[in-house]
């Protein structure tokens, strides 16, 4: 038995871990009681912890071929490896989450979104096909336009295990992003900024979660697009994919629980805002891909900032019509609680896809909270607000949502359960999360 947790370090649960190295290993593991596949464990809560057994997919990390912009690879390949191998050849993942240390399988199972959901959709919109092993052990190639695909994207590993996938990459001319920064002094300004720039390929806002009253929703919004070769200064054009390598800075140990508090976070937020204003004044400028997409990846073991008890993330999406009111209510409640959350992120999402995938047209808000009774109480209050505004929750970030709440906010749950029962997946695939949420 091994004690496993997600990226947030909470909850910690006993499970038997089994590393698989090829298709035959996976097939063998299927009979032997309930299990769940695990990618790189970057989901925050208990999605990738088996109720019983956990299949470690990192042993299947072979790239199998590349042709016409489509990479064929096993599910345990990391997005960071894809970038390392293909950026020098002029290709980049078409959709990427805020960390590159996720597996293709994990990205498909959560149907992850990036800063371009409003334009491009989510990860699975660039997955041409998957080889999927179902509860009975049969392996099937499912193409994106096959109705079966809709039961795989966003299914959190609960309908079957992705073995291999065909991933369409995006051609890019450089490793640089041409970024423009806007500081919004109010929530209305922030929403206005997103809505007026829906053609910007990438857009993301960092929100000052402690700002209240007139300053509620104060944020720094970063718009970006891949820089063309001609956007680069002449000296960078000879090797447009080379960017300065930054050293990873490790957080050496768990900080004490009080390290992140209202005062340190207020100082951090003030510094972030000031940096935002300086960047805004610069006008359009170039940022390297790692700094733009993955600022947190440079800080190794950063969850240790939250201390030993770990942290939780709250992430919901609100429909477009209720977004403004819902965001105001959420932010007001968060600011009133004064709980430290230095990383509060707002993104604009496009239309929904699939049968169980998280995104819907509107706004998604994500914030981290240290594990504590106060945080849990606050998150329940945020659940109420989300529920009241027709929003729903992101399972890849969840570690504590009650089953009742999920069912109440997501009418798709019933059909998802029925599909699991129909295929027999409910008897083979189970995670700590699926048990908690009664999926």
């Amino acid at each position, binding site marked *: 038995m091994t004690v496993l947790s997600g990226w947030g370090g909470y909850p910690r649960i006993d499970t038997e871990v089994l*590393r698989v*190295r*090829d298709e035959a290993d996976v097939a063998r593991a299927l009979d032997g009681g309930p299990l769940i596949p695990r990618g790189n464990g970057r989901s925050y809560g208990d999605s990738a912890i088996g109720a019983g057994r956990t299949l470690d997919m990192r042993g299947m990390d*072979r*790239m*199998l071929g590349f042709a016409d912009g489509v990479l064929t690879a096993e599910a345990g390949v990391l997005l960071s*490896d894809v970038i390392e*191998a293909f950026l020098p050849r002029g290709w980049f993942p078409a959709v990427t989450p805020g960390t590159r240390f996720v597996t293709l399988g994990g990205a498909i199972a959560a149907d992850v979104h990036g800063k371009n959901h409003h334009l491009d959709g989510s990860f699975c919109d660039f997955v041409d096909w998957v080889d999927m092993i179902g509860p009975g052990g049969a392996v099937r190639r499912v193409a994106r336009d096959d109705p079966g695909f809709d039961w795989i994207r966003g299914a959190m590993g609960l309908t079957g295990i992705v073995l291999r996938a065909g991933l369409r990459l995006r051609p890019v001319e450089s490793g640089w992003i041409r970024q423009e920064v806007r500081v919004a002094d109010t929530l209305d300004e922030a929403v206005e900024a997103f809505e007026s720039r829906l053609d910007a390929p990438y857009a993301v806002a960092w929100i000052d979660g402690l700002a209240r009253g007139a300053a509620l929703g104060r944020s720094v919004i970063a718009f970006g697009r891949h820089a063309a070769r001609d956007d680069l200064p002449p000296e960078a054009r000879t090797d447009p994919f080379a960017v300065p390598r930054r050293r990873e800075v490790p957080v050496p140990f768990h900080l004490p629980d009080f390290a992140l508090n209202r005062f340190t976070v207020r100082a951090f937020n003030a510094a972030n805002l000031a940096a935002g204003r300086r960047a805004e004044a610069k006008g359009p400028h170039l940022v390297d891909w790692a700094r733009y997409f993955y600022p947190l990846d440079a800080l190794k073991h950063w969850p240790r900032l939250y201390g030993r008890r770990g942290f939780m993330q709250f992430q919901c999406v609100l429909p477009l019509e209720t977004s403004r009111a819902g965001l105001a209510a959420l932010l007001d409640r968060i600011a009133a609680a004064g709980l430290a959350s230095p990383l509060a992120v707002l993104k604009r999402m496009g239309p929904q896809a699939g049968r169980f995938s998280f995104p819907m047209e509107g706004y998604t808000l994500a914030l981290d909270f240290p594990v504590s009774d106060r945080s849990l109480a606050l998150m329940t209050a945020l659940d109420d607000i989300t529920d009241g505004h027709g929003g729903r929750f992101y399972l890849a970030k969840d570690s504590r949502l009650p089953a009742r709440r999920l069912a109440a906010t997501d009418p798709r749950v019933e059909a998802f359960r029925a599909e699991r029962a129909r295929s027999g997946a409910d008897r083979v695939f189970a995670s700590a999360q699926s048990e908690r949420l009664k999926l």
Partner: protein
Amino acid sequence: MSGAVLVLGATSDMAREIARAFAAKGHPIRLAARVPERLADDKADLETRFGVPVTLHAFDALDTAAHAGFVAGLPELPEIAVCAVGLMGDQAETAADPEAAARVMRTNFEGPASILERLADAMEARGSGTIVGISSVAGLRGRASNYVYGAAKAGFTAYLSGLRNRLAKRGVHVVTVLPGFVRTRMTEGLDLPDRLTAEPSEVGAAVLRGVEKGRNIIYVRPVWQVVMTIIRALPEPIFKKTSL
């Protein structure tokens, strides 16, 4: 263009990462295993990631009569040869069954020594090359829990040391790798201490570095050098009562 790297026992987790480390530096890779068909996806992986040519070769460490022919059948005499072949065996089974004990001894010592001897002769004749043998700290002092394996690795370590001595003035270098615990198929299910246990990718990086720097003996995690210095220094009257 750098020279070819031959990896013996290429289905091992460690070997896979060693092959990647060298492929990333542009070396063509020759993968050798008992059932080379199993390596088709690994070949594709190295080619797709690193764009180097990869070939597959059938190789059985226990079929020593075929070793000379194996070397002759390679596309070229490799610049670097890495032997990751090994077998832990089950101590209770090896104690009870002489066949099983012989298999452990032959797989960890006789087979690897036989193939490396053939490669060493050819490299010596050419006047250049590097040989890497994956041995084990288990060979530094016999312990009750795996002394047949340990004894075989001790033999292999002594063999590598002698080979290094013989070839030192002949342009051929020999690297002995003592990996310590590594999270691989061999150690699956064992409860290994995190600080002492390396990932296969750490072994890959360490072997590449060791070859590039011409090191003689490498421990993957430096802490193992300390641990083994202590274990080796324990006087026998005390050591024999321990259960390490």
